[in-house]
């Protein structure tokens, strides 16, 4: 623990934090412009050139607006809620590498906490605390809509943590390491065909869907759906406290996109320009840019999904997790374990994923399967509830 180490850590935290904050501000602008594009309108284009100063105007407005704390709220927990939301979202980023860690310049590392040997588990650990922000905010608001929103959110987040954790076990088994950088290097050393997306497509699907639910994004933003719950858990929040919830949510999304890029899309690896052994001048910069581009692509995909798929109903949401994703994730682990144990060739893994997917689809759409002595009918229920005939 020398002074240099301390200083380098501080610089890294500064770079990561500043970069994250600036990115979030402009992602909100991108999201608004994209939404406007999809809905055939202009979007915010008045402040600065083509709306480029809009985030600064938004920030100033958030800071300067009157900060209303309603008289009927539980004040301590009301203030604690957004703080926890931001804190957990930021802390989760600590072990995410945002560049080639081995080739980092001497004055900065590309990951804040490099020696956390529990890797992914740390992210789940911090993420599982994030639900407190939503629960406390909703409950402290002392408002029926907020309480309903926070209850939905907590049920949703606790349920979707399970498939999220199970989906990456396959990837971890392939690499024999929990560290994100090891997983990244394992893919980078094998070139573009070594990306986990080829060997673990089903895990990618489960991970991405669960991550959307974990971050309360559409189509899973049941906790704040405005038609039913006004604003959900943040109905009573105004000005900067509302902005903090927003900030936490976006930081969470960015972390999840980094994870997707690193776990499944090879991180900074890209054919020809950014291979594991490329060491030309500026290779480090190119690798960082490649990784950030991949992350940006995934964020844009999430934004497109927002305006493409309508919101789920709550029972559909729960059924998707417990009847769809969790059994599929369990089967996926089984397939990967078997393939590893008997040294099956690598191309059996995507076939296994496909087989599980097809089997799950057949079970889901054939409508009827027998649970002990009753028939559970998923297809012919007009209200979407599961009907049990005996």
């Amino acid at each position, binding site marked *: *623990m020398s002074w240099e180490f301390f200083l380098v850590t501080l610089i890294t935290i500064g770079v990561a934090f500043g970069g994250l904050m600036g990115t979030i501000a402009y992602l909100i602008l991108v999201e608004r412009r994209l939404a406007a594009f999809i809905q055939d309108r202009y979007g915010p284009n008045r402040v600065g050139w083509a709306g480029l100063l809009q985030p600064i105007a938004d920030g100033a407005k958030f800071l300067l607006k009157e900060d209303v704390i309603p008289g009927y709220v539980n004040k301590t*927990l009301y203030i604690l809620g957004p703080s926890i939301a931001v804190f957990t979202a930021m802390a989760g980023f600590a072990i995410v590498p945002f560049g080639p860690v081995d080739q980092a310049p001497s004055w900065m590392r590309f990951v804040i906490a490099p020696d*956390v*040997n*529990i890797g992914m*588990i*740390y992210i*789940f*650990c911090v993420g*599982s*605390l994030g*639900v*407190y922000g939503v*629960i*406390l905010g909703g*409950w402290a608001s002392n408002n029926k809509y907020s*309480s309903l929103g*926070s*209850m939905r959110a*907590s*049920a949703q987040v*606790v349920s979707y*943590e399970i498939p999220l954790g199970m989906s990456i076990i396959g990837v971890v088994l392939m690499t024999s390491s*929990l560290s994100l950088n090891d997983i990244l290097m394992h893919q980078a050393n094998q070139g573009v065909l070594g990306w986990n997306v080829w060997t673990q497509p089903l895990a990618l699907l489960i991970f991405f869907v669960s991550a959307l639910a974990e971050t309360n994004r559409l189509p899973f933003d049941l906790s704040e759906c405005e038609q039913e719950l006004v604003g959900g858990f943040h109905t009573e929040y105004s000005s900067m406290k509302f902005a903090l919830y927003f900030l936490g949510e976006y930081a969470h999304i960015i972390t999840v996109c980094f994870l997707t890029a690193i776990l499944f899309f090879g991180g900074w690896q890209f054919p020809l320009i950014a291979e594991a052994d490329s060491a030309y001048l500026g290779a480090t910069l190119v690798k960082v840019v490649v990784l950030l581009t991949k992350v940006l692509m995934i964020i844009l995909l999430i934004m497109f999904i927002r305006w493409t798929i309508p919101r789920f109903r709550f029972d559909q949401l729960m059924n998707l997790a417990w009847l769809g994703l969790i059994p599929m994730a369990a089967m996926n682990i089984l397939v990967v374990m078997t393939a590893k144990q008997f040294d099956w060739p690598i191309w059996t893994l995507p076939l296994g994923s496909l087989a599980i997917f097809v089997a799950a689809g057949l079970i889901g759409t054939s409508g009827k399967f027998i*649970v002990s002595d*009753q028939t559970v009918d998923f297809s012919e229920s007009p209200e979407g509830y599961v009907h*049990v005939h*005996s």
Partner: protein
Amino acid sequence: MNWVSENIALIVTLVLLGANILLLFPSTGRKSGIPGFLLLPVTLAGLGWVFLQPTGDIVRDLLFYMAGGTAVLGGLLMTTQRNPVYAALWFAVATLGVCGLFVINSAPFLAAVTIIVYAGAIVVTFVFVIMLAQQEQGSGYDRIPQQPFLATVLGCLLVGTMLLGIEKTFGPESSRLSVDRTALHVSSLPVENDLGSPGGVGRSLFTDYLFAVELAGTVLLVATIGAIAIAPRRPQGSL
């Protein structure tokens, strides 16, 4: 009397702890909890004095005091809160403190898993149930403890007994109470580099403790099957 003078630090601290818990308990007669909160730093300092002889590593000592203090504070306030939601939250804080102690003793995997399971899932379920069940404050007999004095005395006695037991088992002869870590390492724990890492924990679980793990797995499987058998709604009522 020899025994009392040997363990005077422990006894004084436990009495302090008990008095503090009694002062913090909600009661009908006394409105303010201020004396209890004023006594709190003294109690924490006493506990810290009893439990850790400085190891010389300032960072480590400081982290120990912070994590241990958080755990004790969380536990104290959990038992004495009137509002069940606050009690559940203080339980989560106590869990975080204990996990801090795990991290200091190089068991990060255990710490992370404890946070995921306890703070992230079990306490969330508590809070969930409390919010669903109790929209307004509970009735009068729910809001004050029924046997505060007896409960405090028994609790402190239990803590004291356990601490003395630990000291007799692991501790050297001549310490106030602290467990001598070097002795602990040599005698009972295998010294490995990856002791607390996921790999080390997994290897240990599936070699040294295989029987216990399989037994626990079987019990959990039985419980799961039972839950599946009981849970579904049937036309003629449940099983």
